[in-house]
Every structure is written in structure tokens, then in C-alpha cells.
């Protein structure tokens, strides 16, 4: 996963720097670092989140280690919180790595980068936004208790949300009916993907605007920062509550022989 992130953060910069630099106006060069941070986030980081979260609980059941650990004086709450925070910490480190590598690669291929003071905050915003799919995948892993099934269901949710979002955008563009854009606002991919670009867009100069247009797509159907942050929190709280309630109530699954 680390190697894949490293490739994703360096290869596109190399390609654009060597063969496609004419496509990018020189005035944008100091801000290309933001593309390397935000582009993977819209989809790739979401898949990383579910890859980490879907197996966090279910793999413990499958290996029988949950049964062994919970037969020790370890409370269920400790186990649950430990698994959640452990996975989320790993995801956070991968997001941080993505931010650092893309900044280094952008500097190496396009020269000194500007406004890097916003980098820590955008990484934190990405970590916060990634909690949406992380918590949903974590919940599915706990509910179905099979890692492969949890991966499939979580991936299906991302793909379905992305496809539905595209159709809703098209429908809105064609009809102008705000119903479509409103629904689009609540889709998990819209919420998780829109928060980091919106934050950067609000703090970076307009010269970087072209990057955000490409990353965000049409402005319609994208919630405000506050609404997006709130709804990410709602998804998180609901998913974690369901997972915790089920974990507290259900028997500890036996090892898959």
C-alpha cells in the first residue's frame, strides 16, 4: 500500500514534468502539490480506508484471535476502541505519507511550492473526511464478520455512490431541478471527497483555482464546508454506534476453520 501511494504521488508529477508541462500554466506550478494531495483522496484514499477498516474486526474473528483475546480480562469496549483507533491511526499515517510524498515530488519536478503552511490542516481535514468510509467499512466488517464480504460491500457503496452522483449531476445539468443536486449533496462520496478541496480552495489564491475546478467538477450539488463536516460526522456517529451496539450484543464469532 505504501509503495502504491509512493508511485501514485510521484509518477504523475514525473509524467507531467517531462512530457506534459506545456498543459500546465507556469503560474500554477507553485500549487501543483495540492493536486497530488487531493486527487488520490477522491477515490483512492477512500478505498484505502475501507481496506484498513473492513478487516479490522472481521479478520480478528476469522483468525480466532478475537475469541482468544476476549477470553482474557480485556473488556469489549477496550477491544472495540483499540481496533478502531489502531486502524484509523494507520489510515491517518498513510494520508500523511500521501501529503508529504506529493509535496516532495511536486517540489522536485516543478520547483518550490507555495502556501505549504496549509498542508498540515488539509491533511487533518482529509483524515477527518476519511472517517466517513472508514467507519462505514468498520461497521460492515463488524456486522458481516467476513473481511472479503465487508470489502465487497464497502467497495460497492463507494462505486454506487460515485455512479449515482454522476447521474444526479447530469440530471441536474439537464433539468435544473434542485432535487437532484440536493440528493447529490448527501451522497457519501460527495461528502468525503468535497471537504478537503473546499478547505484548500478557501485558503489558496485564485491562481490555483483551475486545479480545484478539475478536482471538484461542477460546483452544483456540493455542500458547504460546514454542512459537509457535519454530515461526515453524522455518518461517522451512526456507523460507529451501530457497530458498537452490535458488538456489545452479539456473541463473539468463532474462528473460520
Amino acid at each position, binding site marked *: 500500500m505504501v509503495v502504491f501511494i509512493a508511485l501514485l504521488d510521484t509518477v504523475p508529477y514525473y509524467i507531467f514534468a517531462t512530457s506534459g508541462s506545456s498543459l500546465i500554466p507556469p503560474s500554477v506550478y507553485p500549487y501543483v502539490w495540492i493536486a497530488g494531495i487531493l486527487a488520490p483522496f477522491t477515490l483512492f484514499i477512500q478505498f484505502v480506508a475501507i481496506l484498513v477498516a473492513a478487516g479490522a474486526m472481521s479478520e480478528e474473528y476469522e*483468525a*480466532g*484471535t478475537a*475469541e*482468544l*483475546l*476476549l*477470553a*482474557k*480480562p*480485556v*473488556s*469489549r469496549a477496550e477491544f472495540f476502541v483499540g481496533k478502531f483507533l489502531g486502524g484509523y491511526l494507520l489510515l491517518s499515517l498513510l494520508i500523511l505519507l500521501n501529503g508529504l510524498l506529493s509535496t516532495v515530488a511536486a517540489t522536485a519536478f516543478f520547483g518550490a511550492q507555495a502556501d505549504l503552511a496549509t498542508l498540515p490542516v488539509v491533511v487533518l481535514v482529509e483524515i477527518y473526511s476519511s472517517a466517513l468510509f472508514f467507519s462505514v467499512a468498520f461497521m460492515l466488517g463488524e456486522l458481516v464478520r467476513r473481511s472479503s464480504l465487508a470489502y465487497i460491500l464497502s467497495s460497492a457503496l463507494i462505486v454506487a455512490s460515485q455512479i449515482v452522483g454522476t447521474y444526479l449531476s447530469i440530471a441536474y445539468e439537464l433539468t435544473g431541478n434542485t432535487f437532484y443536486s440536493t440528493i447529490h449533496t448527501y451522497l457519501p462520496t460527495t461528502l468525503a471527497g468535497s471537504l478537503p478541496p473546499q478547505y484548500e480552495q478557501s485558503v489558496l489564491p485564485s491562481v490555483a483555482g483551475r486545479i480545484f475546478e478539475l478536482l471538484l467538477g461542477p460546483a452544483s450539488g456540493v455542500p458547504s464546508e460546514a454542512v459537509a463536516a457535519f454530515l461526515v460526522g453524522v455518518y461517522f456517529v451512526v456507523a460507529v454506534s451501530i457497530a458498537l451496539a452490535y458488538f456489545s*450484543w*452479539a*456473541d*463473539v464469532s*468463532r*474462528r473460520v*476453520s
Partner: protein
Amino acid sequence: MSAPVIEFAGAVKVYGQKKIGPVEFYVDRGEIFGFLGPNGSGKTTCIRMLLGLARPSAGKVRLRGVDPLRKHAEALTSVGYSPELPNIQTFMSPREVLRLAAAEIGLKVGIQTEVDRVLEDVGILQYGDTKVGKLSKGMVQRLSVAQAMIGSPQTLVLDEPMIGLDPAGTAHLRETFREFARNGGTILMSSHMMSEVEDLCSSVGLIHSGKLLFRGTAGDMVGQVLGGDLVHVEARGLSAGTIEALHKIDGVIGIEAISGGVEIKVKHGVEARPAIARMITESGAELLTIRTGERLLEKAYIEALRSGGSKAE
């Protein structure tokens, strides 16, 4: 009198159409309790309820006087568990596995000494740094018992602890468990190895189709199910008249001819061998051997299951 270490008070577990229980028994401090029953009878389910891994549908289970679901950490303090299928990471060495187990129960000092102690207790000290993936099934089973014993718990819950062990390993663990109980430890172990249970356990419980059929000593179970103890007699020249006369000895319930002699059923606890031996030799027959029956618990177990449990209840 102190509360039992392990207590099932009408515990029931319902899985769809299947129902285990109500199960009612207790295990006192210092007992080695053999939990018997065929595959699927509910032994592992009871163990899982005891450890707070499964929630009883009705009734109560207490471990050290505490509900393992409500106060999980408190109930499981000083309890070691070895599951039926050892869930041990194959890329680790036994020492690493045990250090991790020590950390999980909050052991902070003397970990290395404790790890070596339990490795020695189960007889795999020399394999302490070998990767688990390279150990034999029996060694992994011993390691599973070792991780249950880390931290010197007062109670051991062992699901088929002797499975896959060679005779030397079985004998080693048997002594380890005896020593554990001598020091006041309590053991609940499920097993299909009747000879081991008969030899090791101070009490047994028999569960069948989710119902606990019997709880008592192995001898009591034999007496109840088989209707008495068995005496094997190997003799030459036993006449029908002598066999008929053996019926009159005090305590003799029945006699069955077997190859090379007779099997005599006597009332449980009655020592009839001297009278039997005397009568056979006085009849002129040649007495070759006379001994109490072997594998009686196994016979009682099979008989109890064959009768659908009615003989054990």
C-alpha cells in the same frame, strides 16, 4: 463455604432451532472437572458462555462469582483459556506469543521468567525460539495451554487440551494439571479422551443434545450408568456351575461370558475380587488374571449415549 469457581445456573443458549440447556452445575476450587459429551452436544457453547464470549438466552453463568458478560474483565481476571483450535500466529515464536499474552493480561514485571516457567511447565522450553509454523500440532497444542497458564491464573478453562498430543506430551500435561490443582487451581476441561478424564478428573459432567445428564465423580457415573463396577476374570476350566455359584457372592449383580473368562458386574464400591478369586480356585479352575474393568468411563459414556441419556439421569 465459598462460592463455586464456576457456576451454571439454568443457563440456556438458543441458536435458531437448536437449544443448549438448561445447564446446571458448578465446579469448586481445586477440582479438575471433565466436561464430556459427543461432538455438537454443547460443551464448547457452555465454555463460550462461561468466558463471556456467548450470551446465555436464559439463566445465569458465573465465573469466580461474577457475571462474565456484565463484568467481563473482573470475571476473567486470573482465568486462562485454551481453545479447541489453537489460534496462534504462525510467524511468531512461542516466546513472542507468550510475551504478547503476558502483555494482554497486564503482566509488567518478570515476564521473561514467567514465559520460561510456563514453557517448561508444558515441556516445550527448548522450542521457545522456533517459529510456531514449524512446530508440530502437539507442540502448538502445548503452547496453547502455556498461553492459558501465563500469569499463574487460578482457573483454567481448556477445550480439548490433550488433542494431538503424543503419549509423552499427554503424560507431561497430566502432571502439570495435577500440580496446578494441588496448588488450589481449578480446571474445567472438555475432552473426548475418556481414559484421560478417568485418570485425571476429580469430577465429570456429561452433556448430550444440549442437556446435562450427569454431574459427579467418574466412579459415580460408571456406577449409575453401568449399574456397578466391572471385574474381568481370565480363567481356564470355568464350569457352568462355578459361574452360577459366582452369582451368590455378595455384591455380584451379573455375569457375562467373554473370550477366555467372564466379566462380572458388582455393586459400585464393593470389593468382591477376593471372594471371586477364592471361589474360582476352589472350583478347580485355573485363575489367570483378575482385575477391575478398564475404560469403564468410556463404557459408561457410550452406554449413557446409547440409552439416549436415560441411564445417566
